[in-house]
């Protein structure tokens, strides 16, 4: 009895803290996401998407019921915050920031590091805060996110995670991994890439179906949905953004990094048949790297395949004929994506991790200077495929 009472008291301690220096909930303005753009009069323009139930339905709050976007320019985020709080009846709280959006212009100029160098600790943001690069204005992107009656970013982020895990068209990186990449040099950051689809207008114009030629959907025309979308990857060389990968290329990047949950590719077989193939990693890729003057690497990738088009029963009989072509197709695609990254000096596939394991000692790693050797890296991809489609198995048994 005494023990139970003691355990109960100990557990109750967790609920006692709320009374200390109590602050009413409405004294805080909870920021959900931050946008960082190039400023006009100051180096940066910051926009803050803030949860604000009072803004729901208020005049000028736009369509984004329950949230408002606040903007201010400043040399640092603190300068912008200081400018903003002077006109707000509450204090801004950044502990719930889930995402930071950087405009492509800022990312290419290396502005991400300006932001992280001072902000994360001082603003009490979580290490798990996601970083996203936006083609265009980060502030406008946030505005578009809140314009679909989503008072917080939870649903949007859940959608991004779905794209990352189930489609493989989007990488996801958080603050902790970004800092690790920049500080240790064992891999380069790869950020989610967002954009605004200009063809989808808030008030839709007649016949407006064109897409931005620079978009990352690979020319696939979208109709409806949110104007703000995320697809593809922003590649970094250290702290600077240097290029982009389309959603299709991102699938192969995630495959090589061992992060692919599941994805679908379209494959045209030698006999001209068009197949939709579901791919997932059977196990983590095995990377062997030789840290020589010209480094070499071999990557072994084991995939499970599902052929969605042939679930009627013929796929298993065709599999042996299909597999070599499909395997070669995936290997070529992996090679192409690697070449794209290497040409930008972006170790997006994380070969540096294998190099650090090979070199073992701190001094050897520093003397080897991985990033200087990386442009000469010769990588070879070997793909093993296994048909793993229960529908097919069932149909052919």
């Amino acid at each position, binding site marked *: 009895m005494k*023990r139970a009472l*003691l*355990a109960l008291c*100990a557990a109750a*301690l*967790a609920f*006692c*803290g709320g009374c*200390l*220096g109590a*602050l009413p909930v409405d004294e805080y303005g909870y920021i959900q996401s931050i946008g960082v753009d190039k400023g006009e009069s100051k180096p940066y323009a910051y926009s803050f998407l803030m949860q604000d139930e009072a803004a729901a339905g208020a005049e000028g709050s736009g369509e984004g019921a329950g949230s408002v976007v606040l903007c201010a320019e400043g040399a640092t985020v603190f300068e912008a915050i200081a400018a903003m709080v002077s006109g707000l009846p509450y*204090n801004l*709280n950044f*502990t719930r920031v889930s995402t930071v959006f950087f405009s492509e212009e800022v990312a290419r100029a290396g502005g991400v590091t300006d932001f992280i160098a001072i902000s994360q600790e001082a603003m*009490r943001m*979580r*290490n*798990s805060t996601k970083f996203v690069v936006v083609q265009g204005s980060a502030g406008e992107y946030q505005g578009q996110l809140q314009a679909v009656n989503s008072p917080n970013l939870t649903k949007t982020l859940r959608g991004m*995670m779905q794209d*990352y*895990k189930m489609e493989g068209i989007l990488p*996801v*990186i*958080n603050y*902790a*991994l970004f*800092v*690790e990449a920049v*500080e*240790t040099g*064992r891999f380069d950051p790869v950020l989610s890439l967002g954009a605004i689809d200009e063809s989808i207008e808030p008030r839709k114009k007649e016949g407006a179906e064109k897409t931005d030629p620079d978009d990352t959907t690979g020319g696939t025309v979208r109709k409806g949905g949110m104007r703000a979308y995320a697809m593809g990857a922003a590649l970094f060389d250290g702290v600077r953004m240097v290029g982009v990968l389309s959603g299709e290329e991102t699938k192969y990047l995630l495959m090589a990094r061992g992060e692919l949950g599941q994805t679908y590719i379209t494959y045209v077989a030698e006999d001209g048949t068009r197949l939709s193939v579901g791919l997932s990693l059977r196990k983590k890729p095995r990377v062997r790297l030789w840290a020589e003057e010209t480094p070499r690497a071999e990557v072994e990738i084991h995939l499970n395949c599902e052929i969605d088009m042939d679930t009627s029963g013929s796929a298993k009989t065709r599999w042996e004929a299909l597999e070599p072509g499909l395997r070669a197709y995936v290997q070529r695609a992996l090679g192409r994506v690697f070449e794209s990254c290497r040409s930008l000096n972006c170790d997006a596939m994380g070969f540096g*991790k*294998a190099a*650090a*394991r090979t*070199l*073992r*000692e*701190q*001094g*050897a*790693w520093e003397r080897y200077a991985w990033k200087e050797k990386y442009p000469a890296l010769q990588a070879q991809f070997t793909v093993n495929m296994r048909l793993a489609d229960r529908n097919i198995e069932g149909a052919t048994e």
Partner: protein
Amino acid sequence: MKLLQGRIGGQEAACMLAIPVIVGCLFTMRSADAYAGANSTYLWVPLSVLLSLGGALWALRCMRRTQQDDLCGLYVCALGRWGGGMALLLLAALLFLQGFFVLSAFVGAMRSYIYIRSAYVPILLWIAAAAGYVAWGGLERVSRTAKCLGGFLALMLLLELLAPLRGYALYRLYPFSETMLTDVAGHALRQSAVALSPLLCALCFTGVQKGSRRSVLLAAALAAALLTMLAQLAISLAYTGEQLRGMFMPLYRLKMILIDEDYFLLQDKLGIFLWLVGAILSVGFALYGSGYLYCRALAMRDVRPPLLAGSALLCAMTYWKYEGLYSWFERMQAWVGVNGWWFVWVPALLACALAPLRAKKAERAL
């Protein structure tokens, strides 16, 4: 005699010792020093606990050989009344400082991570009051509370370590430091003060069941070594040495490496409250233990005045750390981290070396 000892059994004593050792090894290390070379804390932290265990077992053996009831007797036998008293005071001071380091770390963490705009004083008083309540109950209250909560805290720590399993990566352990062996040995020796002082303090308590002392030391130290190794390994698999160097209380940020935090989102805040329970027990033990040692050193018969003074001093030090003297106390903690082991190892080794000789001499004289 109001030394508030009572009688405690082996399980109570083992839990009472394991908790301060684990809390000390996980939450009071200064990241800038601990991760200065490379990620090797998962080696030297458990090694330091095992080293302390070796020291404590040797002291116990000497106590038996010289037929002393407790460590205080061994110190007096080996170093004389004055020297033994000084050795006990040094041990008490180190134990007290460890309590201070734990308390100030948790006050800082609660202020930084939970009650962001609160003042330090209410947080301090809230934690110190609970720790004081535990300490003022004496050895029985400290040890029985530890026994009640020890298993639960260990289980929760293991679950906390398992939660971010998907985010752990082996490559973060590489590259190793070129001077790894000497680094590990040096760090283990310096860190051993954290584990050795509670273990030696336990040998001073006469309330611990005498026959079970060896098994108490073994159980407490081995459990602490295992849990601290697992926790430090998890930290090293989650963050690189470069990141850890500037990170305060890395265990709190363990789950934040996950890309998709999912239902672990914000559970770190719950975790810190669980660890706080362990911290309160550790501070309670440090307060009572240092007060008791002070009494034994100065032949006082009532532990309550030193307990009262210790509680007030602990609160005052923590208050001043956060209200103006932060860098001074940080420097002091760094100095104790580097040099503290001398103050606990040297008297213990001297006592273990001299006591048998003195005992033999006394026998011959008889």
